[in-house]
């Protein structure tokens, strides 16, 4: 999967002005966009998903242009075939888990799902181990359950790419580790490339086959895991991302590389 982004966008709020000028590309199926809050990384994936329209530039996923200012291409969000996991999941509070997951299948005006769609929802719920929650409302779910439901909903239409906005920030640290592993497994199962936005170095370890570092609305650095295969020399990506997490690099690196070698 090839993701290419080269966009410009200016935001105004009162006297303040934020300029985003982001250009990067990734060939890997695991891409991390890393940066502090306010660095423009969220704005960038919102632009990929079609939630904000850049002023200039071009966005392509797998060779298909989703946005191209010069050629007047700007696909609406509903036609981009992109999956998106919101930071706090954005599960529809008035719908049950089953209705939430079936939501993308039911785009007409009919009130209930078609039988084949019901079967599909049941199947994906089983594979995410949330079948027992089918009739629950989002407010009744725990953090990890919400994330699984949101992932099932994002994956049911088999998106070409899955964008995740700070996917683990709402979870406690134990759960965080487990959900990272689950997400890697989902990537394997569905063969969907992931783009993860984060400011957590541990996410970089696991998902950063390609690492894009954002600062002040610009791409500061792009690196690929192949290049940072020798982290001990002190000039590698890890020292830049988390100088204080050196002590755990052994175990995490083992994990990360084990995952990377699966594909």
């Amino acid at each position, binding site marked *: 999967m090839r993701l290419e982004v080269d966009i410009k966008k200016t935001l105004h709020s009162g006297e303040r002005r934020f300029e985003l000028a982001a250009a990067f590309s990734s060939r890997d199926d695991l891409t991390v966009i890393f940066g502090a809050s306010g660095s423009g990384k969220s704005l960038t994936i919102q632009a990929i998903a079609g939630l904000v329209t850049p002023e200039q530039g071009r966005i392509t996923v797998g060779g298909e242009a989703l946005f191209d200012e010069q050629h007047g291409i700007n696909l609406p969000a509903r036609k981009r075939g992109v999956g998106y996991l919101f930071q706090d999941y954005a599960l*529809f509070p008035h719908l049950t888990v089953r209705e939430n997951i079936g939501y993308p299948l039911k*785009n007409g005006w009919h009130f209930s799902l078609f039988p084949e769609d019901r079967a599909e929802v049941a199947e994906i719920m089983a594979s995410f181990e949330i079948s027992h929650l089918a009739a629950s409302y989002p407010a009744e779910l725990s953090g990890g359950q919400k994330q699984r439901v949101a992932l099932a909903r994002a994956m049911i239409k088999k998106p070409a790419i899955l964008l995740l906005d700070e996917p683990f920030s709402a979870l406690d640290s134990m759960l965080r580790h487990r959900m990272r592993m689950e997400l890697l497994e989902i990537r394997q199962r569905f063969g969907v490339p992931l783009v993860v936005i984060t400011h957590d170095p541990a996410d970089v370890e696991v998902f950063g086959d390609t690492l894009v570092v954002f600062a002040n609305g610009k791409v500061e650095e792009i690196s690929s895991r192949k290049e940072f295969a020798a982290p001990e020399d002190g000039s590698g990506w890890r020292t830049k991302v988390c100088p204080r997490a050196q002590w755990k690099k052994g175990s995490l690196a083992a994990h990360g590389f084990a995952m990377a070698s699966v594909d």
Partner: protein
Amino acid sequence: MPDLTPLWLTLRVAFFATLLAFVFGVAFAWLTARFTFWGRDFLDAFLTLPLVMPPTVLGYYLIVVWGRNGWLGSWLYAHFGLSLMFTWQGAVLAATVVSFPLLFKSARAAFEGVAAEYEQAARILGDNELQVFFRITLPLAARGLLAGTMLAFARAMGDFGATLMVAGNIEGKTQTAAMAVFDAVQAGDYTLANTLVAIMSVVCITILVMTNKLANKGRGGR
């Protein structure tokens, strides 16, 4: 048994007035809640005006616009031979205008309370704007809309000044309950006055209690 014709007329007027206020109130509320445009604050203020102006002043404005020589009224009369003055439809018009701000304000707050994220999620999941509105925005704002609708209904039932200016106080034709109470007291008919007052009070208290219940549910619920 006192004559309850004014009560039925009041219910009919309030029903149609609330219906009209709902359609326009929801449309303007959605517009002002979702879009930032030049003159939005002015539009909001203009639409809220009936809440603070004396009803007789509103009635006067309505005559200026809808009267037989009014801007819209003269056109209506010239083309269809219709006039709203001194008809129950005129009373509907007056009640619509006085109850509109209650619906508009509640609806705007309700729409603003729907997190934009839910609408964005629906778009990414394949919805067009119309589907987003009917499948996400409207259901999530439903409690607030319903509460506003009930307040508007109560207000429409109780209007005196604007209705009197536009529709007059014609017994059996445009005399609503509020006016019948006034007439009954003037004429010393306390049986009729007490009956109407009791019924109106019970209906209004019921509506307010139900509105509060809805609002509380909205806060604590899912």
